[in-house]
């Protein structure tokens, strides 16, 4: 380490300074200060991301991988630099292993369609947990409906933690894939992914992780995890919508059949035949989200410039603080208290429906999510129709938790 780097010791994270990067946080909602506690659904975008997208579109934009002209070359370079940025962010071995997608959902569908579907014989199994988001359930239901795959569900404990032994027991010779979240979007549970991968690999089964939430809150190292597939989405990482990425371990890439067909993904097309481009282009048919890729790179640069351990500690402080404060409300039941969970607080309120609660909070400027959170299997597991969810991001503060608590008290006053 150079002397210069030593001097630049990571400053503890300053959320107030970060807030000034997010213009939207200055907005008033119904005359109240916005308290945005819905970042697990989608995070707000810092100025750096918006500027990068605008600058790129204003100065260097053209289609990629096609023209020989100057701007096409600039654009291609920017797009491939973004891929390299994702590789670094996930610590993948090669940029070839990074496929750009529309988001986390498409990343998982790609694995289902290109890797798993060709392996499935009737009766073959996909092992998944009950806390998966619909995006990590429905693609497997497709394989059940179309090819006779069997979904094997692994339960969570009452506190929301995953029983890894139960998951291991669910894996048998018919298992073709373990599909598991790295962090639940409802419970906040962080799964012991490395342990899961080790045990699944011991039985010869590859693992796909839905990292859409986890990648926001902690460092992900796909090589250390030895994971086979890892899905992320840009818009939860303070980046734009319309872009996500799939990490595919190189060993699987060659065997995977193309996903969508179209331009960019071919080598040669004749009347009689078609041959395909090498990965990752093989899986990126059509004009990709180029401006969004540039935005994603800016978002990853934004995150990486922060002391991520300090950000994580800050988010954890908000969670702990909120968790303590809601203990005062004996009419409120928190769902998901797994040790080491991420900064998501879901709860159910006695005699108050989540939508009524969220409507009243909204009029106080407090944006939370109410509903089933695209996790109906989990709702069924906890015998609730819906929950209210507050999720904490780097730009939230204790004062905002206080605002939520005050709004909850008001809701109780009106509805209780």
């Amino acid at each position: 380490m150079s002397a210069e780097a030593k001097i630049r010791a990571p400053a503890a994270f300053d959320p107030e300074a970060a807030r000034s990067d997010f213009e939207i946080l200055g907005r008033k909602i119904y005359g109240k200060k916005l308290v945005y506690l819905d970042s697990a659904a989608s995070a707000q975008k810092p100025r750096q991301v918006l500027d990068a997208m605008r600058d790129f579109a204003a100065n260097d934009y053209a289609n990629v991988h096609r023209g020989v002209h100057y701007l096409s070359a600039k654009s291609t370079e920017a797009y491939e630099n973004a891929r390299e940025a994702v590789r670094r962010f996930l610590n993948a071995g090669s940029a070839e292993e990074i496929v750009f997608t529309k988001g986390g959902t498409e990343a998982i569908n790609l694995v289902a369609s290109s890797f798993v579907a060709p392996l499935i014989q009737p009766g073959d199994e996909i092992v998944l947990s009950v806390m998966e988001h619909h995006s990590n359930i429905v693609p497997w239901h497709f394989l059940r409906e179309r090819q006779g795959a069997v979904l094997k569900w692994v339960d969570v404990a009452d506190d929301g933690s995953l029983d890894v032994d139960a998951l291991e027991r669910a894996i048998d010779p018919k298992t073709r894939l373990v599909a598991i979240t790295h962090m639940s979007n409802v419970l906040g549970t962080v799964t012991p992914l490395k342990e899961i991968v080790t045990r699944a690999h011991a039985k010869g089964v590859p693992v796909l992780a839905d990292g859409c939430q986890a990648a926001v809150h902690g460092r992900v190292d796909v090589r250390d995890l030895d994971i086979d597939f890892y899905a992320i989405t840009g818009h939860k990482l303070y980046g734009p919508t319309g872009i996500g990425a799939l990490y595919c371990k190189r060993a699987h890439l060659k065997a995977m059949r193309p996903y969508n067909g179209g331009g960019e993904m071919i080598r040669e097309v004749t009347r009689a035949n078609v041959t395909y481009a090498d990965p990752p282009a093989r899986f990126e048919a059509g004009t990709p989200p180029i401006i969004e890729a540039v935005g994603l790179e800016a978002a990853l640069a934004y995150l990486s410039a922060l002391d991520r351990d300090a950000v994580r500690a800050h988010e954890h402080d908000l969670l702990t603080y909120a968790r303590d404060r809601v203990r005062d409300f004996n009419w409120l039941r928190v769902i998901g208290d797994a040790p080491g969970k991420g900064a998501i607080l879901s709860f159910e309120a006695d005699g108050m429906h989540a939508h009524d609660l969220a409507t009243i909070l909204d009029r106080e400027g407090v944006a939370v999510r109410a509903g089933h959170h695209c996790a109906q299997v989990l709702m069924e597991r906890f015998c609730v129709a819906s929950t209210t969810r507050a999720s904490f991001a780097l730009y939230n503060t204790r004062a905002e938790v206080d605002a939520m608590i005050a709004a909850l008290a008001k809701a109780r006053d009106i509805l209780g």
Partner: protein
Amino acid sequence: MMMDDSLRELYQEVILDHSRHPRHFGALEGATHVGEGHNPLCGDRVKIYLVLGKDNHIADIKFEGKGCAISQASASLMTDMLVGRTVGEAEKLMGGFLHLVKGEDANGLDEEDRERLDVMAGVSAFPMRVKCATLAWHTMKSALEGGATAKSE
């Protein structure tokens, strides 16, 4: 405590009372028509049972369901108001209600009906919640139209 006027209007006593003590709640034996409604956004469900008597009169009506205060109150109020009416009268009321909760003119409603439905008018200030208010009413409509699913004894 100061309260937002539109919130006060939305969650007024009549609404909360209907949602806490829904009228005509439960299954109905011998229903001639049954309709099921579902709001996939929030997972709310409602099931409407009705007995259509002679001369197209709604002889009895009940509902079952789970949902927010708005959807439950709306279903309760609706069943309360529709029982005893003819299908034609019910359709007129339903049409008027759907206009009312969207903040549109509910012309053609009787003065008395209009007054009773007015408790739901506050929903129009909450566009995201209009669907909660209309769920039971759309379900009623489909029960009347698609009575084929009902028992035919």
